[in-house]
Structures are given as structure tokens and as C-alpha cells.
């Protein structure tokens, strides 16, 4: 579904800051219906890579194909969920969820019907007419998820979607996400800082390292599916523990490298969300 070949991206120098190689020779293939998580320390290029797949960021070299077509900009087959929700504060939940459909010219009746389906799916019935300012963080992200699913994308791109939420909400939404995904089986690329989250949700974990940003290792997660009904016991299983331990060892090594490298500031452009 997603073919990333030889992707390079550098952010140009500004005064006082050297040019940053955000991505170097990145190759990755994501199969249909796969749930891939991308994990790595700050500055490893994971957000840049996701945004390149989304078509928001031009790449210097290489090619990205989604569903067989070359990526040159945003497209209807890819939808994104943002870390800070990016909901329109002046529109209610219904209008926000229907946003992508409205941009495509779907009629009011059809898009409200579709939006209502998604609102039911993410468990926000009764809140259709609330404004985002009246919702908790977890609820706002459900709206973000509903909005992305409403356009029936082939690929769902999620940029640390639970990063701005507290632990309990995060765990609840992880369960919900897996439950919804196991029903729809969209292809998902999910960025996270958390090893547990990466292993819990993904079929494969793509580990990236910074300076310059590149893929360090891709690890299979052989935990069986479906997982939604028993995430807690998955977390306690021996396999889960051993994979996360392995990831932590690799990550810790990468963190040390970062501390010892010369230019110790975050890459520009990766912290725009």
C-alpha cells in the first residue's frame, strides 16, 4: 500500500543552525491492512516521514507511492490524525467530523448521515452539537479520529495521536482504536514515543534513529490478533515483555548517541504540531 524508496529530506540552514538531515535513504514498505508503528527519540525524522507520506512536505530525493500512485501532495486516500487534534474551534462536533466530506462537496444530508455513523462508532452520541472547547482531550481526539475515518481513507496516518492525553485516557483510546481498526482494517502508520504503545498496537515496529534520521531496525510483533478484547493480558504476556525490553535496549543506546553527538538541538520543522 505504501512504498517508500530512497527518501531523503534536509532542512536548510538558518543563521546559527546548521542544515539538518531529517531523513537519509529511508526505505519502507507497508502492506495493505497492516498496522505499522514508528518509534524513535526526538529528531529521528518520524514526524517528517509521516508528513512526507501525507504530502505536506516535499522530499529532496526518492519516491513515495501510496496505492500505486506517486505522492506529490495531499490526497483523498490518505487521512491524518493530529497530536493536538486540530479541530475547528468554531464548529461543532458534527461539522468537524463532516469536514473532509464537506470539502469534497458531499451533500449536507449525506455527510451528516455519514458523520453520525462515525460519531456512534467513536462513542460520542449526544455530543454532536458541542463545540471542541466544551470537550475533554480524549473526546476531542475521538472527533479527530472520526473525521479521518469519515473520508474512508485507504491509509490512516496518526502523528502521536495520544501524546497530549493523560495515561488513563490514552489506554482507553488505545483499546478503542484497536477495536475500530480490527473492524475496518485500514492501513495505519502510527507514530509514538512509547515502546509499550508501539508493541501493543502494531504488527511491526519501525525503529528510527536521529542525526541523520534513518531507519535503524524493523521488528515484527507476532502477538496474535484480535487483541482488543484482552489488551491487559497482552501487556502481561511474556512475548510482549521481551519485545519491549529489546526495544528499550536499542532506544537507550540511541539516546546515548544523541547526547554525545555535537549538534544537540531538535530538527527544525518536526515540532510544528
Amino acid at each position, binding site marked *: 500500500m505504501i512504498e517508500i524508496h530512497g527518501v531523503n529530506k534536509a532542512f536548510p540552514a538558518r543563521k546559527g543552525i546548521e542544515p539538518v538531515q531529517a531523513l537519509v535513504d529511508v526505505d519502507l514498505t507497508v502492506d495493505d491492512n497492516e498496522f505499522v508503528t514508528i518509534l524513535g527519540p526526538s529528531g529521528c525524522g518520524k514526524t517528517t516521514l509521516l508528513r512526507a507520506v*501525507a*504530502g*505536506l512536505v516535499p522530499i529532496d530525493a526518492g519516491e513515495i507511492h501510496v496505492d500505486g500512485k506517486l505522492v506529490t501532495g*495531499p*490526497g*483523498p486516500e*490518505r*487521512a*491524518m490524525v*493530529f497530536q*493536538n487534534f*486540530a479541530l*475547528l*474551534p*468554531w464548529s461543532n462536533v458534527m461539522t468537524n467530523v463532516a*469536514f*473532509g466530506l*464537506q*470539502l*469534497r462537496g458531499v451533500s449536507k444530508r449525506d455527510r451528516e448521515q455519514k458523520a453520525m455513523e462515525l460519531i456512534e462508532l467513536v462513542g460520542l452520541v449526544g455530543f454532536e452539537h458541542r*463545540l471542541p*472547547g466544551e470537550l475533554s482531550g480524549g473526546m476531542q481526539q475521538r472527533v479527530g479520529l472520526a*473525521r479521518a475515518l469519515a*473520508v474512508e481513507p485507504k491509509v490512516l496516518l496518526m502523528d502521536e495521536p495520544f501524546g497530549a492525553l493523560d495515561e488513563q485516557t490514552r489506554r482507553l483510546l488505545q483499546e478503542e482504536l484497536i477495536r475500530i481498526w480490527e473492524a475496518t482494517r485500514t492501513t495505519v502508520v502510527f507514530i509514538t514515543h512509547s515502546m509499550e504503545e508501539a508493541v501493543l498496537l502494531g504488527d511491526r515496529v519501525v525503529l528510527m534513529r536521529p542525526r541523520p534520521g534513518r531507519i535503524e531496525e524493523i521488528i515484527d510483533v507476532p502477538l496474535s490478533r484480535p487483541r482488543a478484547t484482552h489488551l491487559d493480558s497482552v501487556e502481561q504476556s511474556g512475548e510482549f515483555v521481551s519485545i519491549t525490553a529489546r526495544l528499550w535496549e536499542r532506544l537507550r543506546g540511541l539516546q546515548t548517541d544523541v547526547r554525545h553527538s555535537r549538534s544537540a538541538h531538535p530538527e527544525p520543522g518536526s515540532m*510544528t*504540531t
Partner: protein
Amino acid sequence: MTTLAPSSNGSRTILRRILDSAWLYRLLAFAIFGAVWQIATLGSKNLLVPTFLETAIAFPQLLLDPVVWRAMLISNQALVVGFAAAIALGIPIGLLMGRYRAAERFTNVYINIMLVMPVAALIPLMLMSVGIGLASRVIIVVLFSITMVIVNSRTGVRQVDPALIEMARCFGATERDIWRRVLLPGALPAIMTGVRIGLGRAITGMVIVELLLVSVGLGNLVNRFSANFQPERLYALIIIIVLEALVLISLARWIERRAAPWVRIAGFRE
């Protein structure tokens, strides 16, 4: 089992309601102002400074005088036309400056000049080129108010969360979609602020141009009352002008609240 006596409970809530009412504080402020004014002017026999009571008597007299209302009509013509022009020109200019760097680079110099320039100084120049008449008064009203409209509209566009613009692009928004769905609604509160501030300045411009050179309407009346040593009528007239401004600005605020109901105003210490 104790019960509260109903009467004491009832009067407490009435007292509470009076204390919480905004009008109480406005009346108090006004009363203090009036008292200070009256005391300050009590001893003086200054021909140019009326006492509060004299002004208070002149006020309803003026309100009922058809001469005053005719003057208001003449003056407000310039206000309506000039302010409408200021909004119709200023908002689009400000929006374009906020979004497109080329527009900003081109016009920024002029805006900065207009921000610091005392527009009143331009009035004689205006009259030499455009003459006495509605046109020059309208131009002065525009010059007084348009800068605030432009600057606030520009700020309004600039402070729209870039994440929202990016989100819209992700979902396939064209530039036109971005304007309609993100930039305009996002900038609306700031635009309305600019309109409100611009309105205040437009009213100032309306009166000043009449004071200085084009002697019609309210400005003419101000000059007349000064020349005839009728300071209580002069002050009462000024109060009428201020009241008109307050009414118009309250109207603008009301529209602001209706147009952008999602805006929360934070920060009051309870």
C-alpha cells in the same frame, strides 16, 4: 430541625443581585464623577467651565432641540459613508496582508506611516485638494479609521493556528476552501475588534474635521457654543456625541458576540 426565616433569605438575594449588577457600578462611577466635577467648579466663575448641574440642565434641552438633531444628521452622513468605505477597503487589505507575503511587503511601509501619523494634520491638505463638502469629510473619516481595521484584520489572519491550515490541506482544501473554512472564521474575532476600534476613531474623525475647517453639523455647533460662551451647552453636546459613540460601540460589541460565540474571554480574578 432549623429552618431559615423566609424574609431574611429573600432580602439577601435581592441585595446580592443589586451588588452584582453592572449598572450599580456604572451609576456609582457616574455619581462620583458628577460630584467631583461639581465640587471642583463650585467656587470658580470661569466663563468656559460649566458646573455639573448646569451641564445636566442643558443636556435634556439639547436632546430636544431640532437644531442638534439636524447637525447630527449632517455629521453622521460622513460617518456612515466613510466608515462603510473604511471597512469595505480595510478588511480585504488586512486579510491579504496577513496571508500573502507579497502584499505585506508592498503595503507595510504605508501602514506603518499611517499608524503614527497625526491625521488631523492632513485636514488642511485635504481641503485644498478636494474642497469643502461631504467628500473631504468622508476621506478624513476613512483615514482616521482604516488603519485600525487593516492592522486588526491582518493580525486576525496571522494568528490562525497553522495546524488548522495544514489539517485543511490534508483533507484536500483549495486556497479558497482555506479562506472560507479556516482563515475567515478564525480571523473573525480580530476583524470585529478592528471594526469596533475603527468605529471609535471614525467618530473622532467625523467631529474633528468639522471642528477644524468644514463648519457643518456637530463641529459647527461646538464652535458656536464656544464662541457664544455657552460652555454648559458645549459640554452637554460633547456628552451627546460620546453617548452616540457608546451606543454604536455597544452595538458593535453585540454583533461581535453574536458573530463569534465560541470566543472565551479569560482572565478575570473572581
